[in-house]
């Protein structure tokens, strides 16, 4: 790298007289990279310290929220009591294991609040990834029809009873995964075919896709016997009711895998927000990265929908809020959205359990009532900023 002088322009062949250089060009630039390094602290970027700091702090906040949510429900358990019972561990011996509060805490509340955390976190991480992939800050697995694709996959499996279990494990998530993958490929096709930046085409496509999948699910339920059908309706509204520990553990494996894959592609996601062409020009193997992201997003959405039905807008509002606080870098955005999404759904589910206790509101209703208006607000603001 040669040093910059204001005379160099005159050396050019072809008789071009040097034009007076603009101010910043005539200023001698640092002669070497080493000298540039002295200014390097001015280039603010994400450091591992910040990453671990933020993730750790949000993790701690999630744990506090988790413990706090355990006390609430039809039967209120005091915080001191929650702490004592937690300290006993899941395999307590003697009298305490038959105490009602111990049973409620370990067999009902803990699996449920854990499920809420994992489902919320996964939906938020998927939302953030889809937004980058589709270059659209309003993308959400529920709004653009990925979740209903997964629901259709699961509904087909349930209503026709195809291979519901294999080696004693439910294969419902697998069918939901297939449904989510098909929906994702269709939505991606719609988003790309109208150029790089058509927010409204994507949303309209998603709405129509949602309508088609919902119609197919309703059609299938009318074929099913009424008992199965009413269970289907409850599940479709989004519910975190009644998981047992083994369900939560299986789900944890799927979800951990999916989120880890998404985070491993965070730098590529940053570049994909520039569009496929620009990402490729910066060295991203776009086709390979897309395949990995599609698979991970479908795995997460499929698993979540198979266990807890349709819960919307978590993937929209959580990444949006996190971006406002921590910026757009997906290395931090994904993990932070995961934590905040988990916290958000634990709170929303606690609200759903306690508001009309002993009746439960489906948690999908709570998230839609909170998230829907936020979505509309963002849509209007988005439109204004594009027109301006």
């Amino acid at each position, binding site marked *: 790298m040669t040093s910059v002088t204001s005379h160099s322009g005159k050396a050019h062949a072809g008789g071009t007289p040097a034009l007076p250089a603009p101010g910043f060009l005539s200023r001698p630039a640092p002669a070497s990279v080493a000298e540039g390094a002295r200014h390097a602290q001015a280039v603010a970027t994400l450091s591992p310290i910040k990453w671990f700091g933020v993730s750790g702090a949000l993790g701690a906040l999630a744990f506090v929220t988790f413990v706090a949510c355990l006390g609430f429900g039809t039967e209120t358990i005091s915080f001191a009591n929650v702490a004592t019972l937690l300290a006993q561990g899941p395999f307590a011996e003697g009298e305490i294991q038959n105490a009602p509060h111990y049973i409620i805490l370990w067999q009902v509340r803990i699996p449920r609040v854990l499920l809420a955390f994992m489902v919320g976190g996964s939906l938020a991480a998927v939302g953030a990834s889809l937004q980058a992939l589709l270059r659209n800050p309003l993308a959400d697995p529920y709004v653009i029809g990925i979740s209903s694709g997964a629901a259709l996959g699961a509904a087909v499996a349930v209503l026709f009873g195809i291979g519901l279990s294999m080696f004693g494990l439910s294969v419902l998530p697998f069918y939901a995964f297939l449904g989510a993958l098909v929906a994702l490929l269709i939505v991606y096709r719609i988003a790309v075919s109208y150029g790089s930046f058509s927010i409204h085409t994507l949303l309209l496509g998603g709405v129509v896709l949602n309508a088609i999948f919902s119609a197919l699910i309703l059609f299938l339920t009318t074929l099913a016997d009424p008992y199965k059908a009413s269970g289907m309706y409850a599940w479709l509204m989004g519910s975190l009711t009644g998981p047992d520990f083994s369900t939560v553990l299986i789900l944890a494996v799927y979800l951990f895998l999916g989120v880890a894959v998404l985070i491993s592609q965070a730098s590529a996601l940053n570049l994909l927000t520039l569009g496929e062409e620009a990402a490729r020009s910066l060295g991203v193997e776009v086709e390979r990265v897309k395949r990995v992201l599609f698979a991970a997003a479908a795995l997460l959405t499929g698993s979540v929908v198979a266990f807890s039905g349709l819960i919307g807008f978590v993937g929209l509002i959580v990444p949006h809020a996190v971006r406002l606080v921590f910026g757009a*870098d997906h290395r931090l955005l994904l993990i932070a959205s995961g934590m905040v999404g988990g916290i958000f759904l634990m709170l929303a589910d606690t609200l759903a359990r306690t508001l009309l206790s002993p009746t439960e509101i489906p948690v999908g209703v709570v998230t839609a009532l909170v998230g829907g208006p936020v979505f509309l607000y963002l849509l209007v603001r988005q439109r204004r900023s594009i027109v301006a």
Partner: protein
Amino acid sequence: MSARSETLNRQSPFVVDAVTFGFGRKETAVQSPVLKHVSLAIASGEVLGILGPNGSGKSTLLKILMRILVPQQGRVELFGQPHDAVAQAEIARRVAFVPQETQQAFPFTISEMVLMGRYPHHNRTWGPGWESSEDRAVAMQAMSDLGVAHLGGRLITNVSGGERQRAVIARALAQEPEVLLLDEPTAFLDLHHQLEIARIIRRLNQERGLTVVLVSHDLNLASQYCDRLLLLREGEIAAVGSPEEVIAGESLERVYDCPVLVDRHPQSGMPRVTLPV
């Protein structure tokens, strides 16, 4: 010895041999191609301007060089290697691409945008990866070269078109490329910023021996700032040569299908194009 004459002895960055490209499926693509049997060698250290009417295949040719698009027929060599034998990241370490317009829906800062240029240099076996101090130093250098260092903390969504375009060129420089490809770098800029970008490109070429290939609609800017021009018409090369050879009345009238007046720029003496009344 100046950087310029040193680089002239180096290997040709690009050799394009009988390339045919069309959009869509292979059969239809070859029947109505956007580029037809285009052959071209780009010399190390030159500024090559690609000109032509709308739809003549200018941007397509540039994207083929970057391997954003892959031709159905013919071959492209990058520094003597067949294009398809080189990994995308390896191409990105030697060639940088500045697109016509950069739209960004997400609130990245200017320094985050420029640091994206370091992506092809990262060694990612696992995980998202962190920038090294070298990455930050290179990015800082690129930002001060383009005069956007003071904007590092600003959001890309909140700066002017000229500042955004400079940030994107800084990102390209952060790739530490040997070749810079620009797709109408001044298309959306006012006169002041057009001149500024043109001078920056000229300077990078002169001082660092950076090979530059730029697509432009602006015949006069190209005439002023390019060593060599390539005129495309309906996917074929209509003329190639120095600005004096290419910016000539009859070839322009044939290619653009409209009458033009060619005289001399009062300062530089280079050909200048105006439209008759």
